């Protein structure tokens, strides 16, 4: 048993970090977050060149064919860089859904362009009730047409197609389809834009039945948790650096245990989230029977931990942490938006409860 990264996984993580540090430094991230869509075509081309847009998709559709653990590592580093734009929406969300529910022809049509960097995409799930339980979806398609409204659709403004979760299946709607209206929502996270998407007799192509949807959403959920781990790591690094250099009473503030112990807790929360995310990635990759439980454990823990780590980081920075120019609030905003995305801790605790309390078997395996 080896619960550490293999050499090739270490290499991927390392090269990804270097890539984001070089191609999306904080200044670029800030420039993009001030734009309407946070999308940058040049950056997208570079992501594609690295193979990131096809990382987990089969080679027959132009993907790289790596596993879910590798996806977690990539998303962790993307989260650390607070990568703006539709990468998560396109790859971890829309791509995963197409990969899970699509027919081979549909995969060729929709996954191919994603892998080649030609298409951006997203998935529309939430409605007015804002429930992350797929059973609460009301919208349904009839005769190849969709009418209704979806909320909180990430990156819809730059999507070439939108994967729509309906009661009676999963559908794809092209960005230029008639009767499609996309309007921005003013979310807290400036790096991942949210939209209202309205359909009015809009043509929609059925991708497949919704049966595979839960598995795909598990991948997206774990990917959000992985991004949170990266954000926590960055918040911790910035904060520890500050605690070493900022002086009050003639000493670096990190010497005071009230500060130091908060840093230690940030470390504990970050590492524990990371353990849970890596395990979830492995369980998803192996199609382990406890994969859904593992994803909920990771999202539950990381959702709460990211908020707590952000609180501690800003608190330790004092007044400086409350300023716009300090990056911590950007991570803090992302952490709050990601906390609710794909179910907050309360949602996942109930999901865990239904698995461990209502089912007779306690589903998390112990090797």
């Amino acid at each position, binding site marked *: *048993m*080896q*619960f*550490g*990264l*293999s050499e090739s*996984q270490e290499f991927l993580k390392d090269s990804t970090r270097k890539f984001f540090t070089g191609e999306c430094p904080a200044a670029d991230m800030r420039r993009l977050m001030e734009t309407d869509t946070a999308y940058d075509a040049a950056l997208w081309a570079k992501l594609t060149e690295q193979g990131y847009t096809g990382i987990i998709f089969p080679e027959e559709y132009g993907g790289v064919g790596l596993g879910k*653990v590798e996806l977690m590592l990539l998303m962790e580093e993307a989260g650390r860089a607070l990568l703006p734009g539709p990468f998560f929406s396109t790859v971890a969300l829309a791509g995963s859904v197409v990969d899970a529910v699509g027919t081979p022809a549909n995969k060729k049509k929709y996954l191919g362009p994603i892998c080649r960097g030609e298409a951006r995409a997203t998935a529309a799930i939430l409605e007015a009730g804002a429930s992350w339980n797929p059973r609460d979806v009301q919208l349904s398609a009839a005769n190849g047409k969709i009418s209704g409204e979806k909320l909180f659709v990430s990156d819809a403004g730059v999507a070439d197609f939108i994967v729509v979760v309906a009661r009676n299946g999963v559908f794809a709607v092209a960005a230029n389809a008639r009767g499609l209206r996309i309007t921005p929502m003013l979310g807290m996270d400036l790096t991942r834009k949210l939209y209202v998407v309205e359909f009015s007799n809009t043509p929609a192509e059925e991708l497949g039945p919704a049966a595979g949807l839960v598995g795909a959403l598990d991948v997206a959920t774990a990917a959000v948790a992985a991004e949170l781990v990266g954000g926590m790591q960055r918040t911790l690094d910035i904060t*520890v650096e500050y*605690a*070493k250099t900022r002086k009050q009473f003639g*000493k*670096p503030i*990190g*010497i*005071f*245990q009230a500060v*130091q*112990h908060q*840093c*230690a*807790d940030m*470390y*504990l929360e970050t*590492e*524990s989230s990371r*353990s*849970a995310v*890596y*395990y979830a990635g*492995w369980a998803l990759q*192996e199609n382990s029977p406890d994969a859904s439980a*593992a994803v*909920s*454990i990771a999202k*539950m*823990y990381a959702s709460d931990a990211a908020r707590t780590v952000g609180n501690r980081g800003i608190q330790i920075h004092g007044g400086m942490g409350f300023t716009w120019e300090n990056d911590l609030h950007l991570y803090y905003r992302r952490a709050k938006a990601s906390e609710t995305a794909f179910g907050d801790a*309360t949602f996942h*605790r*109930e999901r*865990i*409860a239904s698995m*461990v*309390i*209502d089912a007779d078997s*306690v589903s*998390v395996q*112990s*090797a």
Partner: protein
Amino acid sequence: MDLNLTVEESAFREELRAWLATNVPKDWSEWREKPIDESFPYLRAWQRKLHEGRWAAVSWPKEYGGRSATLMQQALFWEEMARVDAPPMANSLGLGLIGPTIIAYGTEAQKKRYIPKILSAEEIWCQGFSEPNAGSDLAGLQMEAKLDGDHYVVNGQKVWTSYGWVGDWCELVVRTDSSAAKHKGLTVLLVDMKSPGVEVRPLRQMTGESEFNELFFRDVRVSVENILGKLNDGWNVAVSTLMYERGSYGARLHLIFKRYINRLIELARTIQRNGRPAAEDPIIRQKLAQCSAEIEIMRFNQMRAFSRISATGVPGPEGSIQKIFWSELNQRLQQIAQELLGSFGQLMAGDAHAIDKGIWSYAYLRTRGNTIEAGTSEVQRNIIGHFVLGLPRSY
């Protein structure tokens, strides 16, 4: 990353499972209720049996009676022991902490003299580290050892000594050079507990039991041959003992905690809350789910740490997050138990209305010590702050 067992790990576990299936005592559940002084011969006999099967000290090198087990195999060993609810071994400090330290620092004569009897539970070992004025600040300990010919004369007091009442030998940390800096003047002595001048008193703890002792040394003579490691190098020897404390033993906690939470889930199905089973109460559900998730995360953290140690060879300061995690989790777990059991939670063993023979009231009190024993949470956070994150030393 591959969480499947290797061929060697599977083979190790299969051999152990087969051995346990025929050898683990069936009557432990009756014995565990008895006072420890009554059950101690039983625990000695169990350890002898394990030793006969070469299972008493799997982590030890083969030439010393172990199996040279990898860390992952050691973790499997403790998991399997917990899975079959095996009794603890009588000489657990000798096997887990002191034996490995003697193997690492002892002379050939010392190894020959002490190791076989640690394995066979013929000689029980205790650890004389903490003092009334040296707890977290262990290096500040005062117990004095003065050279007189070829003997040291030892005077002073130790506290929180597990197994002191039954100990034949003690790994004792003493101050041999009071003029040196506090970490530099310490030496480890191996002391016969039957030496004249050693007095052992029970230390009654808040649970009402006496797991620990106080040791008083008055002019106790210890031969210079009984120095472990080098003179005035006792701090390094003692720290290496403490490092073993954070080893694979924690692997059993996952199953122990899981047994607790599974029992609480079972109880929640029958205990009523607001006119329905507590298992249907949303707040109780949230709390049970949070706790069972954290029990899994504790195990993920452990597995990651074991893998890292296997790769780098040494247990690092990251072990401190395991200590904080399990001790605080155990306290939260017992608080949830108390919430669920309501008024019944307080009932102690012997009360006719007590649930599960009063284990929950006992566990609630006992876990209060978890964030103090084996390095307080505050010390663990200092270790993370300074040694992991590189923040300036705060003390």
